[in-house]
């Protein structure tokens, strides 16, 4: 992920005679990041693929708006996150108005959204718990966790794509991790049944 925010796509655009060819290269360069970020935000493969492709399609339509900004990914990220958040809102409205929660295919009706546990690689109980806890985070808090832990972005890169300063990134990460910690502790019930690991010193209760 490192370097994603530094891409100067204007130069790339100028280097290609055809707009289509230039955009194809941009898409190929960023498609994995776009898909995996969308997957972290919306929680299942089909939606992540749809939304990331739709984001590229919208970016192509509005590419002229980017010219003055010079960098593609932070701008594109705004389109992607808005699409994902809007999708999540609609999904919640649909679920709230549906009398039968089982219709959405979630393994557990109390799950806040349709977050598919199968998207996690080399699954085990601990990873499933983390992923389930993440699905319960607020969208903005889940977002910073995804960018930091799953896409390995630095604070500066996160500040660029979120259009905020480092201080906001730091405090959002603090509250996200605090919330995640509380959800995990709440999920566990028992005070110290740490995930298949050795008991921690200093009263850790995760």
């Amino acid at each position: 992920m490192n370097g994603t925010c530094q891409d100067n796509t204007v130069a790339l655009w100028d280097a290609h005679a055809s707009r289509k060819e230039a955009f194809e290269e941009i898409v190929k360069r960023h498609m994995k990041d776009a898909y995996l970020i969308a997957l972290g935000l919306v929680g299942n493969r089909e939606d992540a693929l749809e939304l990331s492709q739709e984001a590229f399609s919208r970016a192509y339509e509005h590419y002229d708006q980017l010219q003055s900004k010079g960098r593609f990914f932070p701008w594109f990220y705004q389109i992607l996150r808005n699409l994902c958040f809007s999708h999540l809102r609609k999904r919640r409205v649909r679920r709230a108005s549906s009398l039968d929660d089982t219709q959405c295919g979630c393994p557990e009706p109390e799950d806040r959204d349709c977050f598919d546990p199968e998207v996690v690689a080399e699954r085990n109980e601990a990873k499933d718990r983390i992923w389930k806890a993440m699905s319960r985070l607020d969208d903005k808090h889940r977002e910073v966790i995804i960018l930091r832990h799953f896409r390995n972005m630095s604070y500066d890169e996160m500040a660029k794509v979120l259009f905020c300063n480092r201080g906001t990134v730091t405090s959002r990460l603090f509250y996200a991790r605090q919330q995640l910690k509380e959800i995990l502790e709440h999920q566990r019930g028992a005070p110290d049944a740490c995930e298949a690991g050795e008991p921690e010193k200093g009263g850790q209760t995760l």
Partner: protein
Amino acid sequence: MTCQDHRDLMMAYLDNELNEEQRRAFEEHLAGCPDCTRELAQFRKLKQMTDSVAFVEPEDRVWDQYWGNVYNRIERCTGWILFSVAAIALLIYGGFAAIENIIADPTIGMLMKVGLLALLGGLAILFVSVLRERVFFWSRDRYRDVRR
């Protein structure tokens, strides 16, 4: 500095995002603050757990077809825009032409002509009224951003 101030540095410390001076200051604080030390240990454990989670990457086939799917969307979007603009323009033009023909046609009775004009006028008024009402309420809806 209070523990709260140091908590703001804690995340950056955990993620190795502090400069040398900030890191030293934070470690000095940690040495004399068991609460922050305990909290840091909890966050470190959480970070380890979160870092251990990774997503399954889709098969190569998905990446091979990715650009094709994006391009199809772009193409379809352009197609829909052209189709919609042309359809609206043709409907408006055709509608006016039809009304003109009906009015100019001497074989159609006056009552029919007046009735048709009244029907179209009423439809236009209803459309504008509903549209205005929607825009008015939407712009003043305090709850429009509230999530259910």
